């Protein structure tokens, strides 16, 4: 079974014909070649696939692509192009907030979501904001430093 799908990704209208079992992050990566969002655990635990759907952060692996019919999706690529997360990206580099980088696209989406709702978070609030995103390299402190720096910028 294949279904027609139309949606907007990073501001561009997109159409495809896909199997309903394909989750959204696979659609972005494999059909649209937007490989910034990462597929990690594929059961909603690691947060590497975090993306924005209709302005809200969701797990790309816990939403089927066919469920995004008519939706507006933003990934790390689009957020980079518009400059929406430029301050965060700069701070991540400055504070060494990544090593292997696998978690970074999801971390940036989580951090951007946090700062939109709460532009001046405490470190504790930052911890809570990224608590759904795993990083296996940094030990998190550098990521919290970076988000704090971006918030103050």
């Amino acid at each position: 079974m294949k279904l027609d799908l139309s949606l907007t990704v990073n501001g561009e209208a997109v159409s495809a014909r896909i199997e309903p079992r394909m989750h959204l992050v696979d659609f972005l990566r494999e059909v649209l070649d937007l490989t910034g969002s990462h597929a990690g655990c594929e059961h909603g635990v690691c947060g590497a696939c975090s993306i924005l759907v209709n302005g809200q952060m969701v797990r790309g692996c816990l939403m089927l692509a066919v469920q995004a019919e008519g939706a507006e999706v933003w990934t790390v690529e689009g957020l980079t192009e518009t400059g929406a997360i430029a301050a965060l990206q700069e701070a991540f580099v400055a504070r060494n907030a990544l090593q292997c980088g696998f978690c970074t696209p999801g971390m940036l989406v989580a951090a951007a979501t946090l700062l939109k709702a709460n532009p001046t978070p405490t470190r504790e609030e930052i911890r809570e904001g990224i608590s759904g995103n795993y990083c296996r390299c940094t030990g998190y402190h550098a990521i919290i430093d970076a988000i704090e720096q971006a918030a103050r910028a």
Partner: protein
Amino acid sequence: MKPAPFAYARASTLAEVFDALETHGDAARLLAGGQSLVAALNLRLASPSLLLDINGVAALRGVTFADGLLRIGALTRHAELGADPLVALHAPLLAQAVPHIAHAAIRNRGTIGGSLALADPAAELPACVLALEAVLVLASRAGERRVAAGDFFQGLYRTALRGDEVLAAVEVPPRAGASCTVQELARRHGDYAIVGLAAQSLGQGVQLAWFGVGAVPLRTPLAEAALAAGDIAGAQAALAGELDPPGDLHGPPALRLHLARVLLGRAAAALKGH
């Protein structure tokens, strides 16, 4: 992993949901927020032949207050539950539970109906509706029937929902002015609780509903009576006779019982502090 193939359809009315359940029976699964179901599909723990997306069914949406009852539509997402002014006023316990449920991204999709229908023994919302003495509205082609939360949870991931029914809403008797608190212990924030407690006090009564301590959420009436009388130590002592928690990788049953006593002490302080 990737899900096994399935057919997908969107329902926009309850009649379409009943049609699909009638035609496909157990082979069909209803997709609401999908925050547990899609994970189960990805892990191939579930392999339905039809996934029926009910997100477009308007009858399952919305929070209303009428005739002295707060009615919460099954499709209400956790984030909506946490932000709804009617919920904050009439069922503050539910609003307080929301920050404990997984993480922000999950709360943006997961629904109260999905959480209750799945009946994970370590989930917050089943215990909350038990503490609130809420009534679950189950809809089928024959009409609606109402089941008390205490009768709805029947075993591990087992509920009173029949194969031809969909959980339509939760009806909560208003608890405006109630003191309430949700306490849980987890290894990391957002993890399922090792032990959790949804507690409420209003007037002379105290309701305690536990999660993560057995196959279903549990009330502890002796501890409730002791706490209502102001006897915190007595309430903690009563738990030994009322809870029989399992041992698992977190530790033996005695550890969980100890943690339950700790949570009860914290809850008593939080309720008193209100």
